[in-house]
């Protein structure tokens, strides 16, 4: 009988091996096995029960059997799992055997395999024995055997699991282990690796194993990628990295078979190369970011807020580069290369009257003369539909570039805003006001002692302010006076705004008069009055506002916002007055144009008459030069010129104020300080601070002017790029050499989106007039790419008609039909409404969830408190009981301190048991009657341990942790 049993058991294993590839089936098999065994056991138990009824011998054994039932099942499953694993190993080994290379290096695995096999067979034997013949044997014996098996398995378990882990080389486990253990383990691992390397040949691997290996390799790769995000010391990281790389390298090549293997190796190699390339590219990209080092230097001297201005400047520079690329590449260069050359037609020639002064520097500086009749301005472009051998559609390109620049700017600004909102949107709530002040207020970039001192002071004030605000809402001593002063301040500011607006309007009107008279008769000031006045206003009004705002006595942050808002209003008012004045001028020019048009027809008629009279057309053609042809005033070019002049003068004022206000001041303060009656550095003039908000505003308005004028002067983005480039260097230099760190150090990120929002508003406001002029005013009749058309956008219509097939035009006309457009707009509005309402509901849900969390938190706290109190009561009872039996204490005092760490888990489980059994259970009963747990001695030591340290804190409720059963933790404190 035993022989056959042995065979069947072998078969069993064989089946297990065969099915090793398929986990599911394996599992099924295991479950069926379990099923069988359970049935068998049940049968046995029934028999046992009968026997017991007869004998009623030992309670203890029954107890264990009932308790052990669940465990047994668990065990079975465990065994199944292990068997699967083992079978893996065995397949490995077997295949190696079949390969026939009897190398003796596989010792370790082989041995374990044998061991496992032996054990297995033994176990199987036992089972079979049970099944077949041992029905009459006593139950005790069987129990003994199961216990034995248990022990065996428990011995076996760690071995196997360790094996498995080693094979997979799970790093997670390693993280937990201490470094010493790790190093030793690593050595082991490496040994194992070597073994495996010899053992594992790709040909001999089963698909499952391959899969596993692949998984392991992937895991390694992931680990390598995530390694930099781990807060380990470098040594550990390096070790891990090297190992895992070694592992990956070792096994990556081994994966795949034959042709697939080659492909795989190739793929691996390519990914490696690709990674390297990516890293190099990343390095290259960071090296290419302009001014990175400069900005970092400033950052370390002045903190992040000053640096944020320069970051903004750089961002602006990027946008302008793209705008410049668009206009330069698609408008200016094609026109210069392929358009008709200079002097071929009237609009491309300097008129006879201006020819003498066209090369004068003063004229060129004003963008008159040759500059006016060049690709820089709208008027130079011809209305020829297609130019050059490329048949480049010049007017269309001009129009589309104009639209494209605006569209691109909108896109970029909105995208950036959205990103900023995403980044900072989370931190909107004020729930961590103090903690943020505490944990995040230091700017680690500050490397300058002076800045650091300022930062200390500002942090202290912010702390004090926060405390004050927390204590009480500050009471105003004289609310009426403050109110009066605030109203007065606003009134004054309004006066300033109105005055500056009127001044600009007046100046523009005056300049028109001068222009009518002819510019030559006037002084330089009179010619540049408008721009100078605007720049000066932009310079001095903010200072005035600053003075006025001291009246108001606002909190600095609020004051800053008011200040920014006022400057914004000033600039906007100025800009719009300027535009309105410009509109007047446009209308004037158009009147003039009408007259000129009439004159031209007259002139042409006279010319015609002359030719008729002379009867020699050829002669007249040669006589009339393009320069002599009378022409209209071309308002578009005029607008473009105005904007260009404005930009130039603005730039100049900025640079000059920088030089005078910062540099000269710094020089004077520095050197006159030696021979002055008071301390200049600490006293009145001192050094200037870098005014972040003012500079950002200046930049924003400058950009607004670019957007407004770019359509009529394609050179504007180029000019702006130049300006930004220069001011980057100039301002960097000025900041580093003549500014002092700010007294109030503001955070950069808080106002980031504020500036962006301003930029968006300016973008909108500056595109408005441009669009208005494009849509409503007909283009000049003799200059620009759209001459001869009724409206500028007719160029689209024209293109549709002539360049696209007929059906397309039809489709387009249908699509632009109001009947289709209106529903579409309606649909969009509905979509917006829908999205907004959903976002609102999400917000509400968020708030709800927050509330829920809070209430749950509170409940937990209450529960903890209750639990802690109960535990305390329990403990006291226990102590009382313990005092009654002091001799126990004496006996066990020595053993109290022994179970420190190892028993902690046991204690925890013990405590949990206590909790579940009801906390009111007095501990003395535990002592007399240990709970149905095999770890009784531990529980005893635990109870004595409670009394050990003399002065423990009895259940301080605040110390309780969220978990119910951890309360007794405290006693060891």
């Amino acid at each position, binding site marked *: 009988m035993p022989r056959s049993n042995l065979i069947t058991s072998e078969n069993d294993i064989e089946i297990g091996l065969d099915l090793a590839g398929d986990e599911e089936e394996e599992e099924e098999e295991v479950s069926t096995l379990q099923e069988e065994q359970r049935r068998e056991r049940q049968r046995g138990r029934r028999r046992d029960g009968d026997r017991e009824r007869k004998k009623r011998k030992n309670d203890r054994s029954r107890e264990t059997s009932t308790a052990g039932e669940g465990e047994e099942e668990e065990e079975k499953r465990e065994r199944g799992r292990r068997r699967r694993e083992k079978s893996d190993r065995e397949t490995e080994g077997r295949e190696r055997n079949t390969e026939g290379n009897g190398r003796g290096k596989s010792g370790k695995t082989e041995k374990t395999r044998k061991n496992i096999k032996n054990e297995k067979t033994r176990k199987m034997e036992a089972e079979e024995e049970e099944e077949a013949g041992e029905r009459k044997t006593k139950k005790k014996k069987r129990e003994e055997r199961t216990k034995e098996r248990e022990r065996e398995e428990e011995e076996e378990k760690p071995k196997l699991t360790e094996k498995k882990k080693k094979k997979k080389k799970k790093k997670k486990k390693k993280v937990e282990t201490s470094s010493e253990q790790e190093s030793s383990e690593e050595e082991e691992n490496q040994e194992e690796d070597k073994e495996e390397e010899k053992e594992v040949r790709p040909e001999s691997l089963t698909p499952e194993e391959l899969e596993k290996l692949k998984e392991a390799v992937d895991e390694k790769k992931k680990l390598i990628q995530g390694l930099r995000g781990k807060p380990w010391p470098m040594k550990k990281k*390096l070790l891990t990295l090297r190992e895992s790389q070694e592992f990956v390298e070792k096994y990556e090549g081994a994966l795949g078979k034959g042709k697939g293997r080659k492909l795989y190796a190739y793929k691996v190699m390519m990914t490696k190369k690709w990674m*390297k390339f990516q890293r190099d590219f990343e390095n290259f990209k960071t090296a290419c970011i302009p001014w990175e080092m400069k900005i970092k230097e400033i950052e370390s001297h002045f903190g992040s807020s000053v640096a944020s201005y320069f970051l903004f400047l750089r961002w602006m520079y990027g946008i302008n580069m793209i705008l410049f690329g668009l206009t330069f590449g698609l408008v200016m260069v094609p026109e210069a290369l392929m358009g008709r050359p200079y002097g071929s037609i009237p609009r491309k020639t300097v008129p006879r009257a201006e020819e003498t002064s066209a090369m004068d520097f003063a004229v060129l500086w004003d963008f008159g003369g040759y500059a006016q009749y060049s690709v820089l301005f709208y008027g130079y472009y011809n209305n020829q539909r297609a130019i050059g051998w490329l048949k480049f559609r010049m007017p269309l390109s001009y129009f589309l570039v104009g639209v494209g620049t605006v569209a691109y700017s909108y896109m970029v600004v909105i995208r950036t805003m959205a990103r900023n909102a995403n980044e900072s949107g989370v931190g909107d709530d004020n729930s961590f006001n*103090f903690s943020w002040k505490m944990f995040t207020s230091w700017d680690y970039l*500050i490397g300058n002692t002076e800045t*650091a001192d300022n930062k*200390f002071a500002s942090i202290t004030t912010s702390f004090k302010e926060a405390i004050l605000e927390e204590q009480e809402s500050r009471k105003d001593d004289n609310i009426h006076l403050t109110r009066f002063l605030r109203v007065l301040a606003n009134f004054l500011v309004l006066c300033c705004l109105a005055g500056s607006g009127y001044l600009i309007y007046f100046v523009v009107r005056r300049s028109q008069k001068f222009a009518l008279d002819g510019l030559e008769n006037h002084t330089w000031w009179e010619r540049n009055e408008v721009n100078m006045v605007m720049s000066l206003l932009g310079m001095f009004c903010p200072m005035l506002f600053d003075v006025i705002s001291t009246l108001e006595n606002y909190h600095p942050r609020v004051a800053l916002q008011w200040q920014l808002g006022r400057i914004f209003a000033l600039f906007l008012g100025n800009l719009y007055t300027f535009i309105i004045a410009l509109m007047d001028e446009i209308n004037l020019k158009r009147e003039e144009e009408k007259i000129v048009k009439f004159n031209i027809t007259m002139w042409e008629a006279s010319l015609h008459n002359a030719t008729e009279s002379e009867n020699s057309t050829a002669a007249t053609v040669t006589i009339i030069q393009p320069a002599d042809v009378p022409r209209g005033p071309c308002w578009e070019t005029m607008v473009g010129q105005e904007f260009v002049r404005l930009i130039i003068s603005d730039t100049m004022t900025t640079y000059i104020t920088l030089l005078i206000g910062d540099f000269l001041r710094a020089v004077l303060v520095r050197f006159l300080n030696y021979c002055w009656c008071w301390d200049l550095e600490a006293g009145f003039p001192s050094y200037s601070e870098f005014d972040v908000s003012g500079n950002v505003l200046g930049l924003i308005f400058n950009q607004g002017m670019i957007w407004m004028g770019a359509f009529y002067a394609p050179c504007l983005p180029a000019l702006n790029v130049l300006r930004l480039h220069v001011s980057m260097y100039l301002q960097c230099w000025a900041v580093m050499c003549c500014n002092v760190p700010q007294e109030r150090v503001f955070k950069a990120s808080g106002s980031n989106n504020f500036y962006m929002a301003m930029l968006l508003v300016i973008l909108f406001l500056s595109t408005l007039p441009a669009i208005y002029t494009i849509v409503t005013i007909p283009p000049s009749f003799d200059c620009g790419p759209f001459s001869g058309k009724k409206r500028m956008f007719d160029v689209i219509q024209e293109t549709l008609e002539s360049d696209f097939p007929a059906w397309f035009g039809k489709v387009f006309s249908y699509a632009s039909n109001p009947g289709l457009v209106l529903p579409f707009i309606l649909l969009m509005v509905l979509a917006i409404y829908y999205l907004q309402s959903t976002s609102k509901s999400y917000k509400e849900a968020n708030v709800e969830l927050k509330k829920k969390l809070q209430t749950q938190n509170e409940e937990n706290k209450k529960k903890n408190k209750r639990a802690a109190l109960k535990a305390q009561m329990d403990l006291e009872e226990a102590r009382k009981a313990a005092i009654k039996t002091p001799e126990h204490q004496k006996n066990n005092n020595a053993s109290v301190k022994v179970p420190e760490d190892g028993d902690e888990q046991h204690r925890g489980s013990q405590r949990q048991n206590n909790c579940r059994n009801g906390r009111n259970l007095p501990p003395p009963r535990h002592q007399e009657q240990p709970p149905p747990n095999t770890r009784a001695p531990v529980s005893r030591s635990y109870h004595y341990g409670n009394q050990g340290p003399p002065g423990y804190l009895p259940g301080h409720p605040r110390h309780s942790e969220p978990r119910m059963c951890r309360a007794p933790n405290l006693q060891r404190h």
Partner: protein
Amino acid sequence: MGTTASQLGKDLLSEYQELTFLTKQEILLAQKRFTELLTKDEKNLPNTRVPMERILTLPELKSNPFRKRICHVFSTSEQKDGSLTFEDFLDLLSAFSDSATLEIKSHYAFRIFDFDDDGTLDYGDLEKLVNCLTGETDDTRLTTEEMRQLIGNILEESDIDKDGTVNLSEFQHVISRSPDFVSSFKIVL
């Protein structure tokens, strides 16, 4: 003495790149700055430790109130003297670099703020932290009453489980919602 590039080695350089948030240029710069801190005979030895006093002469750390804590946190020295090897120095720069993640930044921030290295921010830690932030001078220092109030408020806000201390997860929770932690927790060479 060889040049910095040859000293670092290509493989090691790429490994450092893999393991830190720094780019190649930044690592080389760090190497340069670090060798400047070494004395002549130390330069020839591999893996030298630079004592904390010399590290603190770096202008980037000079005015930082947490400079000593930073050195202690990143030091792997067994004497707990805050001395740094080059690798420790790289770790420091990596954690404070632009592209480091919030997790790693907040982890190190917590350890920097944890003055007694016991794994939680208790009252004493917070008090020291406030004193660091308000500077050494007497006119900026808070009074005891103010301090008590301030720390009370902070614990009220961020001590979620109400055990009287702020632990790492609570700290990370608070930090993760702050708008400007990542932008200000930076040190660049």
